[in-house]
C-alpha cells in the first residue's frame, strides 16, 4: 500500500512528461518504420523485420534507464526524497517504488514495437508472446542501471550519461545496427563482454522459437541484471544514508 502510493507517483511523473512518451514509445516505433523503409529499398538481412524488431525492443529499453535515473536524480535534487525519508517508507519501498512502475512501461513499449512489426509484415507466432515475456529480465537490467546512475549523478549528468552515452553504448555493442561478426576482433570481444548483444540474441532466438539458442545469452542477461541491481541497491542505500 505505502510502496504502491510511491510507485504510482513515479509512474505519473514519468508518463506525464511528453518527451518521455516520445522517446520511450514513439522513438523505437520511428526506428522500426525508418529501417523497414530502408530495408524495402536496399535489402539487408540484419534489418529484416524478424531480426530488427527484437533488437529495437532491447535498444528501446535504454530509455527506461533514462526514465528511472532522471526521476531519482530529480527527487534527490529537490528535497522530495529528504521529506519521504522521514516517512514510514522503508528502503525496500523506495527501491521497488522506483523499479516496478517502469516494468509495465517497458512491456508496453515492447508490445507497441511488435504491433508495428506485425503491420509491417512480421508473422504472428507464439514467439512474439515469449519475446514480450523475456523482455522483463532485460528491462530489469536497464532499470537497475537507471537506479544506479540516479543514485550517484545529478539530473543534468543523467541526461549526458544515460541519455547520450548509455544509449550509444547500448546501440553500438548490441549488434542491432551492424553485424558484430563483420567488425570482429577486439570490438566483437568487448561487445560480447557486455550484456546488450546477449539480450538481443536471446530475444531473436525466443522470437524464432529456437529456445536452445537462448543459452548462454540468458545467463549473461540475468547475471548482469543481478549485479547491476545489487550495485544499484548499495549505491541507493549509501546516498540515502548520506541524506
Amino acid at each position, binding site marked *: 500500500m505505502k510502496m*504502491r*502510493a510511491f510507485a504510482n507517483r513515479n509512474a505519473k511523473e514519468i508518463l506525464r512528461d511528453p518527451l518521455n512518451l516520445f522517446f520511450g514509445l514513439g522513438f523505437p516505433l520511428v526506428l522500426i518504420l525508418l529501417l523497414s523503409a530502408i530495408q524495402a529499398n536496399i535489402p539487408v538481412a540484419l534489418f529484416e523485420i524478424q531480426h530488427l524488431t527484437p533488437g529495437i525492443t532491447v535498444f528501446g529499453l535504454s530509455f527506461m534507464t533514462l526514465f528511472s535515473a532522471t526521476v531519482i536524480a530529480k527527487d534527490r535534487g529537490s528535497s*522530495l526524497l529528504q521529506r519521504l525519508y522521514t516517512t514510514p517508507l522503508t528502503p525496500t519501498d523506495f527501491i521497488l517504488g522506483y523499479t516496478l512502475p517502469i516494468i509495465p512501461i517497458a512491456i508496453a513499449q515492447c508490445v507497441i514495437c511488435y504491433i508495428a512489426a506485425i503491420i509491417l509484415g512480421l508473422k504472428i507466432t507464439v514467439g512474439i508472446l515469449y519475446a514480450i515475456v523475456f523482455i522483463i529480465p532485460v528491462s530489469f537490467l536497464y532499470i537497475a542501471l537507471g537506479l544506479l546512475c540516479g543514485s550517484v549523478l545529478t539530473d543534468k549528468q543523467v541526461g549526458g550519461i544515460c541519455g547520450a552515452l548509455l544509449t550509444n553504448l547500448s546501440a553500438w555493442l548490441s549488434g542491432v545496427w551492424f553485424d558484430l561478426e563483420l567488425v570482429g576482433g577486439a570490438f566483437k570481444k568487448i561487445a560480447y563482454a557486455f550484456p546488450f548483444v546477449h539480450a538481443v540474441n536471446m530475444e531473436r532466438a525466443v522470437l524464432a522459437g529456437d529456445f536452445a539458442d537462448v543459452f548462454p545469452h540468458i545467463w549473461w542477461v540475468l547475471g548482469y541484471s543481478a549485479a547491476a541491481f545489487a550495485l544499484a541497491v548499495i549505491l541507493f542505500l549509501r546516498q540515502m544514508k548520506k541524506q
Partner: protein
Amino acid sequence: MNAIRIEGLTKRYRDVVAVDELSLCIEEGELFSLLGVNGAGKTTTIKMLSCLTRPTGGDAFLNGKSICKDAAAVKSMIAVSPQETAVAPGLSVRENLELICGVHGFTKEKKNAKIAELTELLGLKSVIKKKAGKLSGGWQRRLSIAMALISEPKILFLDEPTLGLDVLARSDLWDMIRSLKGKATIVLTTHYMEEAEALSDRIAIMKDGRLLICDTTDGIKDVAGTDNFEQAFIRIVKGAAI
C-alpha cells in the same frame, strides 16, 4: 512536559563541527525557533532530530524516544518541511497530498477527510487541481507544509519556511504557522529576526554549531541590554553580550 530533550547533540564532518554539544528542552505545544546566520548548525540540528542524519555524539529524545535507538518510533510522530520546496512537480496539489496519505497508509475515508481539512486550513482550494511545479514559491511552501501536516505529527519541523518568499507571501505563511500553534510542537529554523520574534514562544540562537542563548524574545533582549531584537541578536552573536 518536554516534547524534545536534546543532550549533548554533536555532528562532526571530518574537521568541521556542524553542531557542538547542543543541549536544550522544548515543551509540548511550544513554537520554538532556532535562529542563526548561515552555517550556524540549524539545518543539521533539524536533520539529526528528524533522523535524516546520525549524530556523531549525544542523543535527543522526542516524546521519550531516542533518535539514535528508536528512529522508526521517532519518524512515526514527526513531519518535516525541508528548506527547499519538497513537492512532486508533475503531480497536482491534490495528488501530492494523496501521495503523503498513501505513504502513511491512510484508508480512503481518512485520506479524503484529511485532504479536505488541510485544503481548508491552508487555503489550497483554488489551486487543488494545478500541477505543483507550476505554482508560485509561496503556494509551493503552503503545499509543502500541508504535506508535512497530513500525518498529524506531534512534532513539526519547519526548516526556513519563508526563505525566498515576498513580503505578502511571508505574511500569509506566518498567519498559517500561527494557526498551527497548539496543534503540534513546532520547531522552526530561520535567519529572519522578525520571523523568529513574531512567531516564537522561545528562541535558541546558534553560532558555529554552538548554542549561545535560549530564552523568550524579551529575555534575549534583556540579556543583550536592548529593546531591539535584531540588535540583541547581533550583540549576542558578536559576543558583546552573555
